[in-house]
């Protein structure tokens, strides 16, 4: 795994919401990276910040602090951490304060610039590439051929100008009813992204829409219908078609199967699995059904109240859960086995009783290759001891 290319890197992501004087730390210092072609599962109870993490990555929110790198380009950056550093430095009155402040301010400026301009720079880069490609061709060509080339070039530039880097990340939403506009036909819904990106050729659009519909197991006749004419599973398929038509590299699937029946759930999971094999999609899979996440994901991150508490390969995580919250979560999974179920004892997680973080602050540490746990020094020592006995 380690030799694979990193597609998405999230560094110290924080997303705070202010309500009055109270600051709600929805996501607090979360870091992880997703390799190309893998499915990364994010689990946790409702309100723990899974969805917020997904939405912050796709820039639906302006993040408070931290960085998000996509294909090596910083697409989102927050400034709160630098501001805090300046404030702290001023309070502590550290030597060469001015230099430090200047440095931090420079970082803030860079972050703001990246946050605002990453898409423009990307499209400028594309335009420049096009120019480099077409300039020599245009010079060589003449007559009708030149006109044709010119038209093609203009078209491409028109498209390139409207291209954003972020559109290579697409999202599938939880509620297939709420996420589809009831007044648009399926064709309009699926093609909307293409049109915004600058595709003007109706024929191309139709072709692509039909292709996508067939890909997700619907038929081209469905294109002229409205969302309410479909069942829940079919609606979710439309949602999937809408996101893959943009040819994304990363799909953020925010609880795509939670609202569906079991039989339909299986259909959608199979579909996502097929697409993943076919296009080498990378998926950030957010869900609370652990059986589904286990089935679908390569690696899993467990979140609790805005923090990542454990991160490991999915088999490793289910075989050796180390953080008490993960253990509690795993003990709560219902299985279709009545005798086992009736004897199952749920482990209750009470953070106050489990940890003493008053002095020693915890952090995410690697306890085994690829297996990270949120713990402090004392807990780390204990876990290592346990693992030593196990191995």
């Amino acid at each position, binding site marked *: 795994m380690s030799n694979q290319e990193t597609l998405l890197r999230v560094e110290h992501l924080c997303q705070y919401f202010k309500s009055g004087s109270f600051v709600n730390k929805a996501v607090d210092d979360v870091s992880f990276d997703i390799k190309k072609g893998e499915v990364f599962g994010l689990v*946790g*109870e*409702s*309100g723990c910040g899974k969805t917020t993490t997904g939405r912050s990555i796709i820039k639906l929110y302006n993040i408070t602090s931290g960085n998000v790198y996509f294909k090596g380009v910083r697409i989102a950056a927050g400034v709160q951490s630098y501001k805090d550093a300046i404030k702290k430095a001023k309070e502590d009155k550290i030597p060469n304060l001015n230099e430090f402040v200047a440095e931090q301010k420079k970082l803030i400026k860079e972050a703001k610039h990246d946050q605002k301009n990453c898409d423009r720079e990307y499209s400028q880069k594309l335009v420049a590439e096009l120019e480099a490609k077409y300039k020599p061709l245009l010079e060589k060509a003449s007559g009708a051929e030149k006109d044709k080339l010119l038209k093609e070039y203009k078209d491409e530039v028109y498209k390139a100008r409207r291209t954003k880097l972020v559109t290579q990340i697409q999202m599938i939403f939880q509620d297939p009813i709420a996420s589809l506009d009831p007044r648009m036909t399926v064709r309009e819904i699926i093609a909307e992204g293409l049109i915004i990106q600058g595709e003007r050729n109706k024929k191309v659009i139709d072709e692509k829409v039909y292709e996508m519909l067939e890909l997700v197991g619907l038929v081209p006749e469905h294109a002229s219908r409205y969302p309410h004419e479909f*069942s*829940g599973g079919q609606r979710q398929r439309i949602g999937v078609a809408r996101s893959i038509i943009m040819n994304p590299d990363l799909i953020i699937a925010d609880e795509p199967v*939670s*609202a569906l*029946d*079991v*039989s*339909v*759930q*299986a*259909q959608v*999971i*199979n579909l996502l*699995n097929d697409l993943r094999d076919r296009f080498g999609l990378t998926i950030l899979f957010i869900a*609370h*059904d*652990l*059986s*589904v996440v*286990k*089935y*679908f994901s390569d690696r899993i991150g467990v979140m609790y109240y805005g923090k990542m508490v454990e991160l490991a390969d999915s088999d490793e995580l*289910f075989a050796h859960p180390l953080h008490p919250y993960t253990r*509690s*979560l795993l*003990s*709560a*999974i*219902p*299985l*279709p*086995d*009545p*005798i*086992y*179920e*009736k004897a*199952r004892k*749920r482990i209750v*997680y009470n953070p*106050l009783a489990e940890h003493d973080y*008053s002095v020693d602050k915890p952090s995410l540490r690697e306890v085994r290759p690829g297996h990270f746990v949120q713990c402090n020094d004392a807990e780390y020592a204990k876990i290592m001891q346990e693992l030593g006995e196990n191995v």
Partner: protein
Amino acid sequence: METKLSVRNLRISFRTSNGKVQAVRDISFDLAKGETLAIVGESGSGKSVTSKAILGILAGNSIVESGEIIYDGKDLLKISEEDFHAIRGDKIAMIFQDPMSSLNPIVRIGRQLTEAMLLKGKARQRESRSNFNTYLKTLEKTMIESVAKGDSARAAKISENCKNFDKFEFKHIELEKAYKTAYESASETVDDIDKLAFELEKKSAGKDAVDRLNDIIVQTRATVNKYVVGEEHKDEVHSLAGSLMSTYNSEKKANDYPGTLKILYRIRELCKEGVEKEAPNFFRMGYYLTFSGKPLPDMPVGELNDYMKDYLDKEFMLGFISDAETALRYSANRSGEMMKKAIDELNAARPVFKRESLDKKECYAKYKELSATVKSCIDPLNVTKDSLTFTFSPSMKSQLDTYFHGIGANKKAIRKHDADQRKHDRIVAKGKKPEWEVAEANTVDLELIKENIERIITRLVDHYDELLAALPNRNFREETVGSINYLMENASGVIEKVTRRVAKHRAIKLMDEVGIAEPHKRYRQYPFEFSGGMRQRIVIAIALAANPDILICDEPTTALDVTIQAQILELINNLKEERKLSVIFITHDLGVVANMADRVAVMYAGKIVEYGTSEDIFYHSAHPYTWALLSSMPDLDTDEKLEAIPGTPPNMIYPPKGDAFAPRNRYAMAIDFERQPPMFQISDTHFAATWLLHPDAPKVDPPKAVVDRIRRMNERRATGNE
């Protein structure tokens, strides 16, 4: 096991602009007391419609074509809306799928939680009062008849005894109530202090600490009772409670609470002592205080109990119990006599309902006669209700009504079917291919109804035979104690008043129970301030607030995540144990079913296709649809591709001729498309409707995913047992 609810031959359709949608097609099941029945199936299989019918909230365009839902001797499909008010929400409560639409957006959560408690509190008081009076009066009358036998002095003595019972019973309840309030306050205080002190020590108490302290103060003051925190500690308790708040406020700034903790621990000590004290017998005490005219003698609780027992037995109890026992035996024997008569009459009436075509006038006359006889078999002094006797009249009536209505309706249905068929034929003759199929004529099976009537009579006769056989061996002493307990329960129901304060306290406790943090703050908020999971918890709390008999859960945890789901399921399970609740659990998550269900009904296209205990369904499932459901859901060990069920459920405007699942079924045989399979019985508890169980059917194995999973489950259990 006592049957709480029984659904028989239920058929429900919906009138739509395109035609009649048959949502529920002839389903029957029983729900025993304290049992969980899970109904599983895809959306559109008629699960929710069934539950809505039980609660009497079907949509306006629905037609109940046939069937009955018997609860507490009443047919819920036939009683009036006024009668339903007494049942809905109080006896049968429902947790809905969508929490937002079942909460009022402009009323605070607290109000919505307490509203029902306050309203139902009054109604319950009235009901208990009338139950108590009726029962005591019947008992008195029977006692006079059986014991006094015309002796007027004896009769007067009995009447006086009953009056006395009434009097001191209420005294007893009052004393006990005072004790219980104090006792509960004390034990709650211990719990609350344990929680709060822990957080204060860790210096991580939430913002609602003040509210919780206030609660503790109120509770602490309420613990003063002779048998809990004695009068000698009264002053201390009051001064402790008084100083608690000011101490907390002075220490709050420093976030260090040695003084507060000291006070809390002292209160805890006192309450703990009180909780551990032996409780006196208030029943005896009530009698002593009412009739002896003396204050209680000064002695330890244990001795006091014995002393009062002697007094009570000598003065009153032994005589009363023996009289009551005589009365109960007398009443049981009398109803036994009536049963003998009823058996003869029922047997004699059989031919009337067996004729080739029934005579309307004769049948209804006979029905009235039989109803009256059966009604007279009811033993008014028997506390447990004999549901077969109670349901005889409504179920007979509904069968007869269906029969005589069916005679006319059948002709009409056949005419319509013929017309449709002709139209279809015409189109085919023109060489076109029609898009629709001719639906089967929707006729009432008249022979089946005759069989049903026969079965009702046979069932009742058998039941009476059993009762008569058991009559000589009945333990009337035990039943007498049961009757007195019944009276006591109702008396305490009369005294129990639900005030606003009590309701609030109970609501906050419920909110805490369903896992809502900071319930004091949440109590004052509006629904939109809650997240989805939190809203669902509120809905569950509201359903539980009325303390129902039957709880219907319509996918209550589908929108929640695992930890909360597990909490809520545990909560429902605990309540079920505590209150002997019967639960109907509707879901499509088989993991949840395994956790909750005692029995499982798998529904598809409005029919129950498989029915059995949860072990039957999960380890020995027999219907292809159950296999498909089981194999389409991943568990922690699934690696291979999931087997999704192809296609969609059928359009129920044109219900398929054969098995509804056949087009999606890998194992479908030719006959599946032709005829509907009957219910085959596999074991005592396990039924499935599939032609695969027919003796002539080829032997098929369940899909690999299912077999593998069962093997894995067995392995896991084997390793677990070692």
